[in-house]
């Protein structure tokens, strides 16, 4: 690790004041940042510990919906009675990720801002445009089994690794941030970005801005949902492909549908137009297959990850079936029904 100085923020304004200094990072649970610093992938000169800030609440919002504090742990969020009851899709996605120990330490703000798991991003001996702008992308033409099949650019084909964010995307969550220039609210679907020609920018957060909370809208999907995560082992592994589905189904007709994909792009992948086409369709395999085909019509493999296109197609159909039947994927026994 490259030496750095450390300060514990005792108020939001203190944190923002400290965040004005160059090359500082906020540290929350530390489960991603400390790892990146050990590898010298990230070398901040000063850390601002935000764990003492009053940002840990999970509370009902006026007019419905729930506010998730940025410093609430992933575990406390997933097991919160209101989340289990109203947003089981979110609880399920969080519990599909990482390990119990990591979820205890990891925070909601940190989860949103975690960096890619691209092997080259972690390996400072290799070129990587995200880590070292302009140096090139080693994953294109390299080892790219875990890389993107949608929305990639010629500069970067990395994926966003979060499970939680895939569910937040499907639930139309809104991210609240504060910073030197004041407060902003950003729909989660616009929070993460595609790599384009600025792959070092994972999301739209500006330097010195801090995530304070994440709002879940009043609309819940308590019955017809599923989070299906496919990976190289049954637990404690990042998604190769994941699918978050939230449906409203009436007499076998789809009334409302949300589908987000994880592990396939630089951000949780949603297409609102294609989703819209599901409304009024029968909840059956023909509908699901046609939907999966449209959602993946622009998908391109990079060689080692070509298999992800078929895997995603099958996973989308399965997850839609699970959601429509009200039999969501279990994150305990992992049998896919």
């Amino acid at each position, binding site marked *: 690790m490259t*030496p*750095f100085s450390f300060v514990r923020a005792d108020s939001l304004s203190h944190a923002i004041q400290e965040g004005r200094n160059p090359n500082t990072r906020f540290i929350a649970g530390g489960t991603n940042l*400390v790892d990146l610093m*050990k590898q010298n992938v990230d070398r901040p000169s000063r850390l601002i510990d935000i764990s003492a800030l009053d940002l840990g609440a999970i509370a009902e919002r006026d007019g419905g919906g729930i506010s998730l504090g940025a410093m609430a742990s992933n575990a406390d969020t997933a097991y919160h009675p209101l989340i289990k009851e109203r947003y089981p899709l979110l609880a399920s996605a969080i519990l599909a990720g990482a390990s*119990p120990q990591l979820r*205890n330490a990891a925070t909601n703000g940190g989860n949103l801002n975690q960096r890619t798991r691209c092997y080259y991003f972690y390996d400072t001996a290799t070129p990587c445009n995200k880590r070292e702008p302009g140096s090139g992308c080693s994953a294109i033409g390299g080892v790219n089994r875990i890389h993107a099949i949608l929305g990639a650019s010629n500069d970067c084909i990395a994926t966003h690794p979060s499970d939680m964010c895939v569910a937040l995307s499907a639930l139309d969550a809104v991210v609240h941030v504060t910073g030197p220039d004041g407060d902003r609210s950003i729909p989660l679907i616009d929070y993460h970005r595609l790599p384009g020609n600025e792959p070092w920018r994972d999301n739209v957060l500006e330097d010195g801005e801090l995530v304070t909370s994440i709002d879940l809208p009043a609309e819940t999907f308590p019955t017809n949902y599923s989070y299906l995560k496919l990976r190289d082992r049954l637990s404690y592994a990042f998604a190769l492909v994941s699918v978050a589905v939230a449906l409203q189904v009436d007499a076998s007709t789809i009334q409302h549908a949300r589908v987000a994909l994880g592990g396939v792009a630089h951000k949780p992948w949603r297409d609102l137009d294609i989703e819209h086409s599901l409304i009024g369709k029968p909840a059956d395999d023909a509908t699901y297959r046609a939907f999966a085909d449209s959602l993946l019509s622009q998908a391109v493999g990079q060689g080692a990850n070509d298999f992800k296109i078929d895997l995603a197609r099958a996973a989308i159909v399965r997850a839609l079936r699970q959601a429509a039947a009200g039999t969501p994927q279990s994150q305990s026994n992992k049998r896919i029904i």
Partner: protein
Amino acid sequence: MDKTVNPPTSNDLQIALTINGQGHTLVVEPWVTLLDLLRDNIGLTGTKKGCDHGQCGACTVLVNGKRINSCLALAVTKDGAEITTIEGFASGGKLHALQTAFVHHDAFQCGYCTPGQICSAQGLLDEGHAKTRDDVRELMSGNLCRCGAYTNITDAVMQVMLDGSP
């Protein structure tokens, strides 16, 4: 009993920790992980370093009652915390129920992962979310065992979970 180690230098910070019931005032560099602090500064080498990257669970300890990976926690972020390591499990020369169950079920071979497994199992029991064997397998999945003692580890945890004692 307070133990103060290392004189302060510019970047160093003073923290207070209660480790296995004993108070410590320590001056640490901000880049020292809780794992390295426990092993190198305090001399509690029961907690193991497997991967140092959050990928194996060997370094699991309880911080304010919650299991976490001590290799990814900077010690300076834990000021004021109560830490329990494997050295804090047995009391008065008597093994803890989980330790007895691990012995009884032969839940290890080399034993390198065992301190982390036991701390993690205690976290699992306190959290109270595991109801079935599948749940125990899943909620112990943050602890790898290179010797592959998983079946016996699950048996040991199940027994303590169901009986309260081995």
